[in-house]
């Protein structure tokens, strides 16, 4: 046979995002797998933006144009939820910080181009959480479910209120009071994160650059199960590139911030993974602090987990997936609590 070595669709997809692969070199049918994987990762519109100027087969170009237009509408809808949350919380004097997708879109960061935004995530001070809950209930949000066990579980152990949905707009909001579950082994300092948040000209508040990158890494790696990993890692990559423009030593800034929140290892892994997949530039330091990004054997597991999709967009390694799922529960909850939780979940069926 000879000729070219077949490259998996998910690899091709990652290479296209990273700019390592010329889209003109793809065979027409290679796009099947690339589009399938991109959809499975909820990143088709992201790819469409990345390749907006590239020469593409006409039907792919048309599909990508549809995706860009639809993503623009979806982002406006997502940001409107933030605006309605502001209108509900402002009269009660409750300030909040936008998290994740809504924050990236509000600040027009580069990862926002085409990015899908699901629920609205906001962070409020723990001391405001009850009043925030009331203000939202008065403004038309309601609990998604009223299962007392789940409720208690959320309040005691999780880093957010149980999800609420707006009864007219049918959109969910997650109100957080810390960025990782309380039972998680590392406990980031939410008070500091809120105090040092940045206000945009639109009036919305978002994390400062270093905190935003820390949260992105925490969301991706400390939550454990790596769901949506390629998307979250793309966020991480783009955020780093954006912030390096104003701060050439952003590596130091972000790792310093990560130390405060107990997230240094997580952030360093984020750098290594995004370097390996998306080509994020890295820079090691020996002064004013030691900072190295030496490859670690355990990174290979993460890379493999991130790339387990076949040409039909399916997860191809259920064992690896399961291992990450169990790991994610382990990281969130001390063992005894894990046993109790799984028991109650099991008994309910």
């Amino acid at each position, binding site marked *: 046979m000879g000729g070219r070595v077949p490259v998996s669709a998910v690899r091709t997809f990652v290479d296209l995002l990273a700019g390592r692969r010329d889209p003109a070199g793809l065979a027409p049918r290679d796009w099947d797998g690339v589009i399938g994987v991109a959809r499975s990762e909820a990143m088709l519109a992201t790819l469409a933006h990345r390749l907006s100027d590239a020469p593409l087969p006409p039907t792919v170009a048309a599909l990508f144009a549809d995706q860009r237009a639809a993503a623009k509408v979806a982002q*406006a*809808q997502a940001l*409107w939820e933030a*605006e309605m949350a502001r*209108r509900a919380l402002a*009269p009660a004097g409750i300030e909040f910080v936008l998290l994740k997708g809504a924050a990236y879109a509000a600040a027009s960061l580069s990862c926002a181009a085409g990015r899908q935004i699901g629920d609205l995530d906001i962070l409020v001070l723990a001391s405001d959480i009850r009043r925030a809950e009331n203000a939202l209930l008065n*403004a*038309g949000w309601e609990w998604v479910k009223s299962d007392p066990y789940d409720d208690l579980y959320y309040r005691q152990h999780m880093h957010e209120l149980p999800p609420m949905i707006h009864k*007219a*707009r049918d959109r969910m909001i997650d109100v957080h009071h810390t960025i990782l579950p309380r039972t998680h082994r590392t406990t980031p300092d939410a008070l500091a994160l809120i105090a040092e948040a940045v206000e945009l000209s639109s009036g919305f508040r978002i994390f400062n650059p270093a905190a935003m990158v820390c949260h992105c890494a925490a969301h991706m790696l400390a939550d454990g199960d790596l769901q949506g990993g390629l998307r979250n890692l793309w966020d991480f990559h783009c955020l780093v590139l954006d912030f390096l423009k104003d701060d050439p030593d952003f590596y130091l800034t972000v790792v310093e911030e990560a130390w405060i929140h107990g997230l240094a290892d997580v952030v360093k892994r984020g750098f290594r993974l995004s370097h390996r997949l998306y080509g994020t530039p890295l820079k090691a330091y020996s002064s004013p602090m030691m900072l190295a990004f030496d490859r670690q054997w355990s990174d290979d597991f993460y890379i493999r987990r991130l790339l387990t999709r076949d040409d039909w967009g399916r997860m191809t390694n259920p064992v690896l997936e399961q291992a990450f799922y169990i790991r994610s529960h382990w990281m969130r909850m001390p063992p005894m609590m894990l046993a109790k939780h799984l028991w109650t979940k099991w008994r309910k069926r």
Partner: protein
Amino acid sequence: MTDRAYRAAPPGALRVEPLGELTAIFDRRSMQTHLVVSPMPEILNAMAGDACNAAALADRLAETFDLGGADDARGVLAERLRELAAMGLVERA
């Protein structure tokens, strides 16, 4: 009950299309479509510009419409303003 003041959407935010007995309003900020009947379009029209409460709105509307009793009109308008605020079409000033 206090007569709250509300602010209309900025110019260009809304696209208003009368469709027979209904009026379809597209909000470019939220990407939402609202279907309303009289007097909602008239209220939005009269509100353009500065913040205004039900009393001020009643005065403005009285110039072009017969509102009946002024107190009744004020109560009804306050209720309509709350509904428009819930839809996001007007905002508490």
